[in-house]
């Protein structure tokens, strides 16, 4: 009985910390933070965490939720599964194609320059002179940070939460094949 209560307690806490939005671009928690909150100290703590996450994941699947890992900031978090995502409009740039286009150019430039994107290069990729209003809007929404001194842009981990990069690459490949 005590073990069941302990497990339920852990699951509730895990659910809470994985669904907690701490800032515009920080949701969930890292492995270290989870283990610290659950006070797990034994030598097999990683296996223990994996078991916990698998356990919670099994509870969440029927609810249309899944646990995911954001490799940009090593955070575990909870996501709606693809069926639910299709039902509700998850596109944060609905009706704002200009922002989506600028974001893709930032992403491309960041990939090319290992993290930072010079604004001049984004302008070139976007094939548009006036992109500052887009960049400022994207910054306001938490997707990037503009460094006014170096005139460069850096993506925040938010893109790791919001965007399925694998699907985007598949779409790109298909488009290029056309």
């Amino acid at each position, binding site marked *: 009985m005590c073990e069941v209560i*302990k497990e339920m*307690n*852990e699951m*509730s*806490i895990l*659910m*809470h*910390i994985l*669904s*907690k*939005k701490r800032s515009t671009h920080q*949701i969930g928690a890292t492995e270290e933070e989870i283990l610290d*909150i*659950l*006070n797990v*100290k*034994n030598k097999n703590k990683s296996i223990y965490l994996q078991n916990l996450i698998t356990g919670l994941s099994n509870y969440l699947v029927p609810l249309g*939720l899944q646990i*995911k890992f954001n490799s940009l900031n090593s955070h575990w*978090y*909870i*996501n*709606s599964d693809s069926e*639910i*995502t*299709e039902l*509700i409009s*998850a*596109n*944060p*740039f609905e009706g704002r*194609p*200009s922002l*989506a*286009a600028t974001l*893709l*150019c930032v*992403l*491309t430039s960041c*990939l*090319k320059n290992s993290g930072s994107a010079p604004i001049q290069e984004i302008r070139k*990729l976007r*094939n548009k002179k006036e992109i500052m209003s887009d960049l400022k809007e994207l910054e306001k929404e938490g997707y990037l940070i503009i460094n006014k001194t170096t005139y460069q842009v850096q993506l925040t981990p938010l893109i790791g*939460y*919001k*965007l*399925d*990069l694998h*699907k*985007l*690459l598949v*779409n*790109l*490949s298909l*488009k*290029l094949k056309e």
Partner: protein
Amino acid sequence: MEGIDFSEEINKKIGVIKDGVLSGKINLLNLELNPIFSDIKDSLSIFNIKNYSQSYVNACELLNRKFEELRNLLRSLDIEKKFMDFLKEKPSKEEIYDIFNGCWNCNFELEPLSINFLEYSVNRFCKENTIDLRIEHLNKERSDYQFLLEIPRLKFTEKINEFFDEIRNKLPCYFEEVFENEEHQIRIYEKFVYLLHLLQLGKIKYQKETNTLYV
């Protein structure tokens, strides 16, 4: 369980998938194979294992093929180049917008999830879950003592007697009255244990009908 054998259905299902893959209708990378392995696992028994072994082989073939496709995809991924190639074509903002179709995630953020209870739970857990259970082999040690553990028999008896002296003047009284001035749960429990011992020793008696303790 004895009569259950879904191997034929599972093999048929795998066959349909294989045909679909060969005809290009099914992309293995978009197909979940977990349900097939779950079907095998959930209905496997000693009675059908002979037929199921072939189903398992077929399912593993499918999984291998999926791995192969994934390997090919990874090999073909030259991420940065793909993005550049696409942007070199100078696509319109609408075309770029369309590329993102179906790529957005919907994160689950539930701030008001019984927040007070969970915050309390987190703090409490942190303080109280400090026991790290380990099973360690003990080394045998030579000892001149016969008993390693000291049994404080006399001390416990003294405590019982002390409790008896404390309540003696109250008796006879109702059962609850013995604990009435005590608020601390652990202390109440301790006194209750002493009372049980006193009842067993016959120093105190209890009348169920009137809920009374007496000497």
